[in-house]
C-alpha cells in the first residue's frame, strides 16, 4: 500500500538538511509523468463513492482525500550528478466519524470498489475504537464550499523545466564554489507537487494544486596542513513557489550588513552568487577568531531566526502537544492552558507580535483550504508580548473556546491521517523604518548570526541552544570580523523578553523548514517563518571548540 522510502543522506554530505535521511513517497516514474493530472469530474465521482458508503454504514461525518504526491529531487556533488529521483504516489485516504470516534483507512486502489472497501474498513475501525473512547469527538462547524479549486500562484511550474537544466544549474553553483576556494560542495534541488482533492459530507469538493521548491547546498573548506575543516550552508529558503524562485532578481535582493558582503534573498534566489560567497566564507572560517564565552547582544538574520521561531514558538503552541498527545515523542509544552487563560503571560517583550497563517505569499504553508476543508486564515499567537492563542484544528477548537478551526490540519500523504500541523509562524517586522546597519549601529558588544546551524531544544520547549552558519563580531556599532565556535543558550521566555526590536517590513523575508517531523509514525510537513533582522539583548553565548 504505502510506499515510503528514505534516501540516506549521510553519504551525500548535505549538512544543511539537518537530517540523516529524507523521505521519498511513492514509486519511481519518468519525468513526463510528473506533468500529468487526474480529471476533476472523475475525482468527484470517486469521492462521492466514499461519502455515500460512509453514510450508508452509519458514519455521522466523512472526508476523503484523493491525492497525487509528486517529487523530483536532484543531487550533485562537485562536478557530478549523484542522483535524480522522480516519484509519484497516488491513492485515497478516508476518515470517518462513527459513534463519535475517528476511523481512518487508505488504499492505492483508486476505483469505486477499492474506495468503498476502504471506507467500510474506516467505519469498522471507528466503531471498534469507540468502545475505548471516553468523550465523543466534538467538531467545530465548517461551511460546505461546493466545487472549488486553488493553485499555488506560480510563474513557472518547476516540473516543466527539463531536469538537465536543473542539474546544470546545480553544477554551475558547485563550480562557483570550487572556483572560490571550496574543497567540496554538495547541492540539491527539491521540488514537490501535491495534487489534492478533498471532499466531505459538509458539502465541499476542493481541488488543489500545491507546489514547493528548495535549492540547497553545503560548501566545505579543508586546511590539509592543520587537518581543520569548516562548512557553510546555503542562505536559500524553501518556498511555496515555482521555478521563478531560481531566477535571480535584483529587486528581491536585500543587502546584508556592511562589512560582510552578504545578501538576503526574498522571492528570488541567486544560487551562483551565494555559492561563491559561501566558499569564501567557509575558507575564512578556518582562521576566524574563536569566540570568548559570555553575554552578547545578538543580531539575528531572518534566515537564522526562522528556526528559532519554529522551535521556541511554533512547536510549543501546537495544541495537541499542550494537551499531551505528543508526550512520548516530541514532548509536551511549557505554554500550558492556565498561562493562556491568565491573559497576561508575557511570552516576550512588547516588541514581540507573532502571527500564524497559511495565507502568506510564497510561503510553504500557503493553501486555499486545509486537509479538513477549512478555509485558511491568519491569527495572532503572541500579541505585543502576551500569549493570546494556539494552533488548533476542528476537533480541538472548542477546547480553547474558538468557534471555528484555525485551518491547520495536514497529512503528508493520502495514506497518512490528517492531524494538527504547524502553520506559518512569523514575527511581525518593526514599525519604525530601520535597516540592518542601523540595527547594528546601536550594539556595543554583539554578534551577528546568519543561516542554519546546530539547533536543540528540550521536550517542553524551555531551554534551547542554537548555532548558525556564519558569525560576525560587532563592536561599538560595527562589524569587526568573523567569529567561530559560537552557540547561544537561552530559555524561551527569557529570550523573547530580551527582544529589543526588528528592522522594518522592507527587510522582512521567509525562512522555511521543508521536512519538519511530528507524530508516531512520523509525518513530515513544510512550514515558513517570516521575520526581519531582530536584536536580542544580553544572550548567553558559549564557545563550542573542543580538542579530541
Amino acid at each position, binding site marked *: 500500500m504505502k510506499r515510503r522510502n528514505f534516501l540516506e543522506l549521510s553519504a551525500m554530505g548535505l549538512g544543511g538538511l539537518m537530517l540523516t535521511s529524507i523521505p521519498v513517497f511513492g514509486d*519511481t516514474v519518468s519525468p513526463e509523468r510528473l506533468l500529468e493530472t487526474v480529471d476533476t469530474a472523475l475525482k468527484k465521482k470517486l469521492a462521492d463513492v466514499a461519502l455515500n458508503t460512509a453514510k450508508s454504514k452509519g458514519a455521522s461525518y466523512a472526508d476523503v482525500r484523493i491525492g497525487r504526491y509528486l517529487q523530483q529531487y536532484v543531487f550533485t556533488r562537485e562536478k*557530478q550528478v549523484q542522483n535524480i529521483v522522480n516519484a509519484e504516489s497516488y491513492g485515497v485516504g478516508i476518515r470517518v466519524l462513527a459513534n463519535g470516534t475517528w476511523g481512518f483507512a487508505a488504499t492505492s486502489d483508486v476505483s469505486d470498489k477499492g474506495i468503498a472497501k476502504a471506507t467500510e474498513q474506516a467505519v469498522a*475501525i471507528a466503531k471498534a475504537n469507540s468502545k475505548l473512547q471516553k468523550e465523543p469527538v466534538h467538531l467545530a462547524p465548517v461551511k460546505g464550499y461546493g466545487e472549488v479549486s486553488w493553485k499555488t500562484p506560480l510563474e513557472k511550474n518547476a516540473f516543466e523545466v527539463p531536469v538537465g537544466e536543473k542539474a546544470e544549474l546545480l553544477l554551475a553553483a558547485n563550480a562557483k564554489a570550487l572556483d572560490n576556494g571550496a*574543497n*567540496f560542495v554538495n547541492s540539491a534541488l527539491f521540488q514537490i507537487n501535491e495534487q489534492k482533492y478533498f471532499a466531505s459530507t459538509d458539502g465541499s469538493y476542493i481541488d488543489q494544486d500545491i507546489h514547493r521548491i528548495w535549492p540547497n547546498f553545503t560548501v*566545505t573548506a579543508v586546511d590539509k596542513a592543520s587537518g581543520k575543516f569548516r562548512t557553510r550552508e546555503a542562505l536559500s529558503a524553501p518556498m511555496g513557489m515555482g521555478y521563478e524562485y531560481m531566477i535571480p532578481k535584483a529587486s528581491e535582493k536585500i543587502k546584508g550588513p556592511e562589512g560582510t558582503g552578504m545578501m538576503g534573498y526574498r522571492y528570488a534566489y541567486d544560487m551562483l552568487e551565494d555559492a561563491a560567497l559561501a566558499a569564501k566564507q567557509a575558507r575564512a572560517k578556518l582562521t576566524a577568531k574563536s569566540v570568548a564565552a559570555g553575554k552578547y547582544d545578538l543580531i539575528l538574520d531572518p534566515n537564522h531566526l526562522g528556526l528559532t521561531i519554529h522551535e521556541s514558538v511554533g512547536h510549543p503552541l501546537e495544541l495537541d502537544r499542550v494537551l499531551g498527545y505528543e*508526550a512520548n515523542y516530541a514532548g509536551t509544552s511549557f505554554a500550558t492552558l492556565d498561562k493562556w487563560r491568565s491573559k497576561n503571560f508575557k511570552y516576550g517583550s512588547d516588541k514581540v507580535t507573532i502571527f500564524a497563517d497559511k495565507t502568506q505569499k510564497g510561503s510553504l504553508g500557503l493553501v486555499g483550504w486545509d486537509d479538513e476543508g477549512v478555509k485558511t486564515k491568519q491569527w495572532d499567537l503572541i500579541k505585543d508580548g502576551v500569549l493570546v492563542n494556539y494552533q488548533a484544528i476542528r476537533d480541538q477548537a472548542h477546547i480553547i473556546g474558538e468557534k471555528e478551526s484555525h485551518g491547520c490540519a495536514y497529512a503528508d500523504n493520502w495514506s497518512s491521517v490528517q492531524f494538527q500541523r504547524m502553520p506559518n509562524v512569523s514575527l511581525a517586522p518593526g514599525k519604525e523604518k530601520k535597516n540592518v546597519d542601523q540595527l547594528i549601529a546601536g550594539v556595543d558588544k554583539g554578534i551577528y548570526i546568519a543561516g542554519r546551524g546546530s539547533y536543540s531544544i528540550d521536550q517542553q520547549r524551555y531551554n534551547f*541552544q542554537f548555532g548558525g552558519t556564519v558569525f560576525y563580531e560587532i563592536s561599538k556599532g560595527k562589524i569587526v570580523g568573523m567569529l567561530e565556535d559560537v552557540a547561544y543558550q537561552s530559555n524561551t521566555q527569557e529570550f523573547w523578553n530580551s527582544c529589543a526590536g526588528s528592522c522594518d517590513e522592507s527587510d522582512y523575508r521567509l525562512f522555511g523548514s521543508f521536512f519538519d517531523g511530528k507524530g*508516531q509514525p512520523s509525518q513530515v510537513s513544510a512550514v515558513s517563518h517570516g521575520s526581519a533582522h531582530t536584536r536580542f539583548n544580553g544572550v548567553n553565548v558559549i564557545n563550542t571548540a573542543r580538542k579530541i
Partner: protein
Amino acid sequence: MAILSKEEAQAILKKALAYSKADECEITLSGNNGGNIRYARNEVSTSGAEENTAMSVESRFGKRSGVATINEFDDKSLEKVIRRSEEIARLAPESPEYVPLLGPQKYITTKEHFDTTAKIDPAYRAEAAAKSIAAANAKSLTAAGFLEHYTDFTAKMNNKGLFAYHPATVIDFSVTMRTEDGTGSGYVTQDFSDASKLDTGKASEIAAQKAASSRNAKALEPGKYTVILEPAASIDLLQGMFRGLDQRSAEEGRSFLSKAGGKTKLGEKLVDERVTVYSDPAHPEIPSAPFSGDGRPREKTTWIEKGVVKNLSNSLYWAQKTGAKSVPNPGGMIMEGGTQSLEDMIKSTKRGILVTRLWYIRSVDPQTLLFTGLTRDGTFYIENGKIMYPVKNFRFNESPIIMLNNLEALGKPQRISGNLIPPMKVRDFTFTSLSDAV
C-alpha cells in the same frame, strides 16, 4: 503477497531478469507488512496496519544507469519496469563513480525472522497497549506510548549471478509516563526481533517507577559530572560516532577521523582501551541481514579494538579507487561491556548522575564530533552508592570521543535500537545549563 519465501522471490526475479536487454541489470524485491498502535492520555489515539511489496530495477548501459520501481508483478508489469529502467539509463549521464555489479557471493545465514513477531494481529496490539495503560492507571500516571512491528524480506538478483534473500522481523515499543501534577516523567524503550521477549506491562513498570520517583526534582549546578548513561541515553551519541566510521570522508579531510597532513586515524588509538566495537550479522541478540544494500557480504567486523580504529567502511568505488579493502557498512553494532548490572554500577558510585534518556541530540561541530542535547524522563543524583533524589534536566555539550576517553566502567550490554550497548560510567561529562522541562 507482501512477504515472499525465498523460492517465490527467486521465481519472480528470474522471470523479470529474463526481460532485460541491458549490459548489466540488478533487481531488488522487497516487501513488508506490519502494524502500529499509539496511545496518549491513557487512551488509544490511532492504530493502523500496512503492507507493501515493491520491485526496484537498475539497468546499465556502459557507465549509464537508470532505476525504476513497480508494485505489480504480472508479466506485463515486469517487462514494463525493466523497459522503463532501460529508457532512463539511456538518457542518464555517465557515472564517474561506476563500478561493475557483483557476481555470485557467499553469505552466512542469520536468523532475524521470528514467527512470534510475524503473527502479531490487531488483538495483540490492543492487548499490549492495554497492559501498558494498566501499569499507568495502577499508579495514577498518564501514559503516552507507541508500539510498532514489521515483518519484511529483501531479495536481490542480477545478471552477473548474484542472488541474496533475507527475511526479518522487529518489534519496537516505547512509553512515556507522566505524573498527574506534571512534575515527574519516566520512559522506557525496548526492541526485539523476537516478540516473545517483549512484555509491555513489565517494561511499562520501569517507566512508571521512574515517573513516580522523579517528582519534584532538585536543581544542581551545571558543570562536569560523573554520569551513568543507560543504553537508551548513550545510543544516539554512539551512533553519531558509528556513522562516522567512514573511509572516504576521513580521507577527504572532513571527519573527526581526519588528521593534519591529509592523514586519517585508522590504526590509531581513538578512545579508552576498554572500548571494543564490532558488528556481527549472526549475533543472536541483534541479528541483521548478511548482505549490505549493494549486495556485499556482511561478516563479523571489528571497528574499534581496545580503543584502536581497526576498520572504516567504504563504497565499492572508494575501495577500488584507493586500493583499500572493501568494507560494507554494518547492521547493528556491538559494544563489549562487563558483567555489572546497572544497580552494581550505581552501588560503586560515590557521587554521580544517572541518566535515563538523552533528547534532541544535534551535531555542534563535526570536527570534534561535539553534540548537544538534554537529559529527559528520569535524571537522578547518586551519592555513596545510592540514588538520593531526582534532579532537574541538564543540557549537555559533549563528544562521544571525549566521553569514551573518560570511561570509568562498563556494565552488561543490552539491546537498544538494534545495537548491543552496555550501560557506562563516564567522568567529567559536560552539562552546560539547566532546563525546566519535565
